[in-house]
């Protein structure tokens, strides 16, 4: 199940609805749905911010395999950008020294079981995997 979304933050409500549509009935907890919103928003808005030169849509695919939920975001015709290599932020860092961007990716990494990045044919693909809790 996949769909293309305009690369703009105004697409977020449609993306949340798309996630809802495909995870409903999988047994995912409300906290799990929240985590998926958060993670997909973070990765999608990174694409909006850092690959704005490409106006092509972002493709989001949702797959369920047994108890594993996989969401894949593909950004077309862009330079490589691996969010997993973003610098981590220590929560004890004083407020004025913190960088907002790094905080989001740090949370993403805490909220998913696996995050893979690949780049081929000028397409960046991020695949996240989350085990569904009963």
């Amino acid at each position: 199940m996949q769909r293309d979304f305009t690369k703009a933050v105004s697409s977020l409500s449609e993306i949340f609805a798309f996630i809802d549509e495909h995870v409903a009935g999988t047994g995912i907890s409300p906290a799990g749905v929240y985590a998926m919103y958060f993670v997909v928003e973070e990765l999608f808005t990174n694409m909006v911010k850092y690959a704005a030169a490409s106006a092509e849509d972002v493709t989001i695919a949702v797959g369920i395999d047994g108890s594993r939920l996989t969401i894949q975001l593909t950004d077309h015709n862009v330079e490589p950008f691996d969010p997993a290599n973003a610098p981590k932020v220590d929560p004890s860092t004083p407020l004025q020294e913190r960088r907002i961007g790094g905080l989001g990716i740090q949370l993403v990494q805490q909220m998913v079981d696996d995050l893979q990045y690949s780049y081929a044919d000028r397409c960046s693909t991020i695949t996240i995997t989350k085990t569904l809790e009963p």
Partner: protein
Amino acid sequence: MSEFTIAQREREAVHVLELKGYLDAHTAPKLEEAFQGLLKDQRFNIIVNCKDLSYISSAGLGVFMAYIEDVRKNNGDIKLSNMSTKVYNVFDLLGFPLLYEITPDEQDAYNKFGNALTRK
């Protein structure tokens, strides 16, 4: 579905923002505007009531971080109240409870302004 609204009201010397809905990268500018308005009006004692806040993303968390220093420099504070567990968990993952006062209900947050209010 990702609607986001802010209701504002006064409680004596404290300004209360009631957030409702989804605070994401698309809606976060609304909260920024609200904080900018409060700072412009020199209202630095602020409670953000999160009772009806369904979702906050890192863009929403970033707004709180962007304004807390300016507010505290002016002897005020941003206190948060009435968070659902799932919203609190996101603040907690980043260590925000060490940086912000987060109270179970609005009255607790109001009481914590204590001395600041008697100085008015």
